[in-house]
């Protein structure tokens, strides 16, 4: 996948102000801090991290749904180019036709007072993508069919549907305007296991069919391992490792990525996991630690890590890591979970 990036950011930061009352010092939550990332066109790109790592904020920055503090974001799908940071309002509306979001909670994302047909048709009407009601209906039926919703379903209200069906409605709404770039933010996290696999398969087949690019945000590494081509791991507002999925799971380089993989409960009751568990919790993004952001929890911390912040290196093609010691630690704490092919 040596495709050109559909979206790329340089030194991107998103900081949210908090406090700042009369006697209070204004502080900032550094949700995304100095991130460089390129998402290849046509890829299914995974973004993983724990809560508070800034993965949702990064996803929304790509959609211009949060104010950008610093940095550049460029979008280019071969037809249109946008400089997302300095985007006039009118252009932003145009961009929204090309970039869409699928939400996490299918129970909160759908208006209970609208029929499924109206929910799916709304983006078309708002964006003036169709000229007649017949055309709108035609498009709604087409995408509904792809998301395995039948005509009977379109007449009903969301309350009549189960979680998996609602998520399919939500996906249909996001894809009806034929976006080129889709951010799926924890889109299967609220679903039961038996339904989750179904929605994942649907997303993947829709991507193949429609040729769009996905940014798939998730906290669940095993889901990401199965569906994504490339994965970026985020910790405290920064990217710490970016690699093709197989390579990341076969030979993780950052101590945090290794720890994440070791923390997943194995399905085999006889599996003995004697590796040391990661201690402590993710620090507050208002007051991040000095040097490497992970040094407070890293089992391999040395003085250098506390003082100097590692940058995301490109040691070899397509496997980036931000750690001073990754080369020395290459064989430490590694469980190989996937074979490289």
């Amino acid at each position, binding site marked *: 996948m040596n495709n050109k990036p559909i979206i790329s950011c340089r030194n991107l930061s998103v900081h949210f102000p908090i406090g700042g009352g009369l006697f209070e010092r204004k502080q900032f939550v550094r949700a995304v801090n100095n991130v460089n990332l390129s998402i290849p066109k046509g890829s299914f790109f995974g973004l993983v991290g*724990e*809560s508070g790592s800034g993965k949702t904020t990064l996803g929304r920055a790509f959609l211009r749904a949060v104010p950008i503090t610093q940095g550049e974001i460029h979008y280019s799908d071969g037809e249109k180019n946008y400089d997302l940071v300095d985007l006039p309002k009118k252009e932003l509306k145009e961009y929204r036709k090309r970039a869409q979001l699928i939400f996490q909670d299918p129970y909160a994302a759908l208006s209970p007072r609208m029929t499924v047909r109206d929910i799916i048709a709304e983006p078309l009407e708002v964006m003036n993508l169709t000229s007649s009601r017949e055309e709108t209906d035609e498009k709604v039926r087409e995408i509904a069919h792809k998301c395995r919703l039948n005509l009977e379903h379109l007449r009903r209200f969301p309350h009549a549907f*189960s*979680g*998996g*069906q609602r998520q399919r409605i939500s996906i249909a709404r996001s894809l009806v305007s034929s976006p080129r770039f889709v951010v799926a933010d924890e889109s299967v996290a609220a679903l*039961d*296991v*038996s*339904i*989750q*696999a*179904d929605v*994942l*398969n649907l997303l993947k087949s829709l991507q193949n069919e429609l040729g769009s690019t996905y940014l798939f945000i998730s*906290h*669940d*590494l*095993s*889901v990401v*391992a*199965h*569906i994504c081509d490339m994965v970026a791991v985020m910790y405290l507002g920064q990217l710490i490792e970016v690699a093709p*999925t*197989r390579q990341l*799971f076969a030979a993780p380089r950052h101590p945090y990525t290794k*720890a*994440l*993989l*070791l*923390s*997943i*409960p*194995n*399905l*085999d*009751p*006889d*599996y003995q*996991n004697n590796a040391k*568990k*990661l*201690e402590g*919790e*993710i620090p507050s993004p208002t007051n991040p630690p000095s040097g490497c952001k992970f040094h407070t929890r890293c089992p391999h911390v040395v003085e250098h890590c506390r003082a100097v912040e590692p940058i995301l290196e490109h040691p070899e093609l397509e496997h980036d890591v931000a750690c001073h010691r990754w080369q020395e630690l290459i064989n430490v704490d590694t469980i190989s*979970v*996937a074979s490289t092919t």
Partner: protein
Amino acid sequence: MTLLTVENLTLEFDTDEGRITAVNNISFEVNSGEVLGIVGESGSGKSVTAKSVMQLNPSNCIYSENTKILLEVEGKSIDVLALKGGKELQTVRGGSVSMIFQEPMASFAPAITIGHQMVEQLLVHKNISKADAIKISIEMLDKVGISDAEKRFKQYAFELSGGMRQRAMIAMALSTNPKLLIADEPTTALDVTIQAQVLDLMKDLVAEYNMGIIFITHDLGVIAQTADRVAVMYLGELVEQGTVRQVLKNPSHPYTRGLINALPKLDDLDAPLTPIPGDIPSPLERPRGCVFHTRCTLVEPRCSESIPKMAPHGEGHTAACFVTAEKVGVL
């Protein structure tokens, strides 16, 4: 030693839309020092099953007449459903049975300090002085790995992080020295690295206190790493029960097999994800016969006519399916 015996538990809710069967005729046991994992998807009835052990279900819930829930405490057998009124129930609720909930932020009172809540429940259940209660509470917080326990004791729930809160919740649940602990999705709201810490802590505490645990979760991986025995529930029915190895390595019910196949596995990234076809039926429209027959790949005509009974598939391993039972020749 058998700690808890649940026999023919049937539970219905009276709602505006009619009477809903939440749990249908299930039986299981929990021994001291044993972790029983209950797995199931949303709406399978796993939470209401556990809550019935403490009579925590809302007042519109109706237990069938032959339901029996017996708790063996200090040589006495307590019939939980016969208990009436706050005083009698207190011996069970928070006394011999404690519960840990999924979302620790919602289970601590926000305007009362953690310490005050811990002391309050100790004074209700134990005949001890306030000074002793404070001492026990701080010791417990220390034991579950909360650093600076004396400071945390005086803090409010919002001042603690998610993992800390769940540790405090565990400390509070264990401070009364319960015989049975019910943990309802205790790690679902936590990040994986924190989940691993909390699971380790719980395992250590079971060994130390020798209590019985009912561990409710939807995550088969968590079950594999914590439970001794597993009960699989679907739409209010118990479909399979056995040791964790029997159920996860050699599943006998098509639903258990389906769940395992639907799970993305890290050791084989090429394996296709096989969803269980269809959706979980609404509890208002429970299928006739076997509740799983609408989604089952092995379905036969008899599955929609009569309800399969739990049949033995090995020592202590039972499953409720006509088709798989016939294959192993136990029907």
